[in-house]
């Protein structure tokens, strides 16, 4: 009877250890990537406003928008596809707001994305990676809002 009690305690502790071990393992190796579609956007801006802010003060603007989810609206100036990634550039084809939709999103949402072409206006959400001297503002993990 006594043994049984110790055994129970042992099994209880062993169980807790096992569950937390699995938890840590899952956290480290299977922590999901941020889900931009579900995450609420930190800022809602137009592509023109975003470009203006970055070109007037890059450091301060990156501190404000860097790694944040932004909801951006603008006119499509360029569309291209490479390595499964769909890129659209808003407002200025040579130095605008570049938005990349990753290959998993592209294959799952081809019906939504097929209507995007130069001249159409879009609203999308994406992670702001910063300001590049050749590409302009770069957003990745983009999802289409409308």
């Amino acid at each position, binding site marked *: 009877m006594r043994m049984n009690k110790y055994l129970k305690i042992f099994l209880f502790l062993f169980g807790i250890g096992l569950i937390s071990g699995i938890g840590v393992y899952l*956290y*480290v*190796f*299977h*922590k*999901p*990537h*941020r889900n931009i579609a579900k995450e609420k956007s930190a800022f809602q801006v137009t592509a023109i406003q975003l470009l203006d802010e970055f070109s007037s003060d890059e450091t301060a603007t*990156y*501190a404000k928008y*860097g*790694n944040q989810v932004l909801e951006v609206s603008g006119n499509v100036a360029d569309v*291209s596809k*490479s*390595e499964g*990634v769909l*890129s659209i550039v808003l407002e200025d084809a040579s130095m605008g707001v*570049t938005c*990349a939709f*990753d290959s998993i999103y592209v294959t799952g949402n081809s019906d939504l994305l097929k209507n995007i072409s130069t001249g159409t206006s879009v609203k999308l959400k994406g*992670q702001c*990676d*910063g*300001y*590049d*001297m*050749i*590409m302009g503002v*770069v957003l*990745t993990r983009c999802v289409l809002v409308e």
Partner: protein
Amino acid sequence: MKKLVFLGLMLASGIFSYSQKYITKEGVIDIHSETSLFTIEASNKKVASVLDASNGNIVASTLVRSFKFKEALVEEHFNENYMESHKFPNAVFKGKIDNWTTVNIKNDGTYSVDISGQLTLHGQARDVKEKGELVVKSGVISASTVFNVSLQNFKIEVEKSYRDRINDDIKLMVKFNYSAM
């Protein structure tokens, strides 16, 4: 007068065809780090580069946050602890192809090239020199090279307890498909 204008146009067109620039905004850089315990792989498919065909000068740039990892937690550590992308969001290479005179972009072919220049990562600029390959095919110039980067050299600190999992020598596998600007 007409002759002069004609001459001017000839000269101008000569200059334009000479200062031909090639560009990509969809270059790829893959990161590879391997130790016996842990392999780390990431891919950045938003790398931009301009190749000046008049002299072989190259500029390439990307954002550190655009490197995507398989494991979300590794991506977080890469940005927050190692690259400190909140302080140093950009990665830039400025350099040239040393043996540019041996490359004839008007002819299809494969050329091995020597690349040298300055790589800026983590706010640190370092001279680099690597071998690469250019494949010219119907107006598209495909460039590939591997940059071997030492983390210590760029002042990227790896905690003692992680040194058996993160190799100090990281490979940056670069692939650009340039087309005329």
